[in-house]
């Protein structure tokens, strides 16, 4: 008797219906493993950043705030009304001089304002006027209006939890998109610029 005949003889003892059922049962752990592995692969490989919190204000009107200008800068202050009146989409960038990534994204804002003619408004978040002035004097001013939010209350109204944050605001003052963290070329080319174009008509 060869070993192959052996196994066949043993297997043949059971009826084939439950045998098939058992095979499926044996495959179940493999299936579960594949599903779990799929989730892990998605978590590891996709661009999703789990610490990023989606904005609760998408497709809603800009909340109420009325901010004075930064003392010593030419740009006027910023209030909700300024964003409601715009007939073109605008960018609202929340920045601070103490925020290192803000420096990194600043050239992108400058280029958007100067070369692409996009209206960029700024909220200077929890900063001192002297520091804010130095930041703008050193790096340039892409902002049409800058509101000084020294207490951070306007930031809370907007749901800001980490500067820099950038909002795309539609013509009627509706928040259409929020980018948390410095704007990179990917966010710019894939999200912000297409959206500005779409909203601008």
């Amino acid at each position, binding site marked *: 008797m060869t070993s192959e005949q052996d196994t066949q*003889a043993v297997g043949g*003892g059971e009826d084939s219906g439950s045998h098939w059922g058992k095979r499926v049962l044996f495959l179940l752990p493999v299936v579960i493993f594949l599903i779990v592995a799929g989730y892990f692969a998605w978590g590891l490989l996709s661009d999703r950043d789990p*610490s990023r*919190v*989606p*904005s*609760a*204000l998408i497709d809603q009107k800009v*909340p109420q705030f009325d901010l004075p200008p930064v003392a010593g800068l030419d740009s006027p202050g910023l209030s909700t009304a300024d964003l409601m009146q715009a007939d073109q989409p605008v960018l609202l960038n929340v920045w601070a001089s103490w925020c290192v990534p803000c420096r990194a994204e600043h050239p992108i804002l400058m280029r958007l304002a100067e070369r692409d003619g996009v209206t960029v408004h700024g909220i200077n978040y*929890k900063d001192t006027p002297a520091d804010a002035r130095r930041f703008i004097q050193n790096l340039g001013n892409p902002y049409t209006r800058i509101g000084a939010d020294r*207490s*951070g*209350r306007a930031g*809370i*109204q*907007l*749901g800001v*939890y*980490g500067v820099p944050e950038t909002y795309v605001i539609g013509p009627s003052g509706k928040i259409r998109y929020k980018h948390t963290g410095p704007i990179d070329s990917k966010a710019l080319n894939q999200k912000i610029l297409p959206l500005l174009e779409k909203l601008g008509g």
Partner: protein
Amino acid sequence: MIRRARTAVWAMRRSLGAFAIALAVALAAPAAAVQPEEKLADPQKEQRAQELGEEIRCLVCQSESIANSNADLAKDLRVLIREKIQAGQSNQEIKDFLQSRYGDYVLLRPPVKPETYVLWYGPAAITALGALGVGVFFWRRNKRPAAQQKLSADEQRRLNHILDGE
């Protein structure tokens, strides 16, 4: 004999001490980041603010409540909550405001709604499925001995063959 008993007592004392330390660490209240100058004069309102703060997530650190976090934003939110309490708002109104600004994620206890059914009921469903599986396993195991037949003549011959060692 005596020495051995004494060693045993020592060992027991030592493990008791370790247990006491572990218990103290486990029961210690988490350090609150609330600063003295933030506190409200009215102890009842301060208590409310404290309890609310425990339920609001600090979005900077994300696994801490704003009551426990030292982040700037957490402090701002603690002060904001106290101002709103002073202004006579209810806990629900304050939570609704924060939720409207930061989304469900700001609540450490997520609301029950269709999007969060998996989160709330998933563990119970998986436990029920597991219990069902275990139940079926034992039910079938109990049934099997009755169904088991005697060895056939062929099987008996092969068994003898194996037991005899060729």
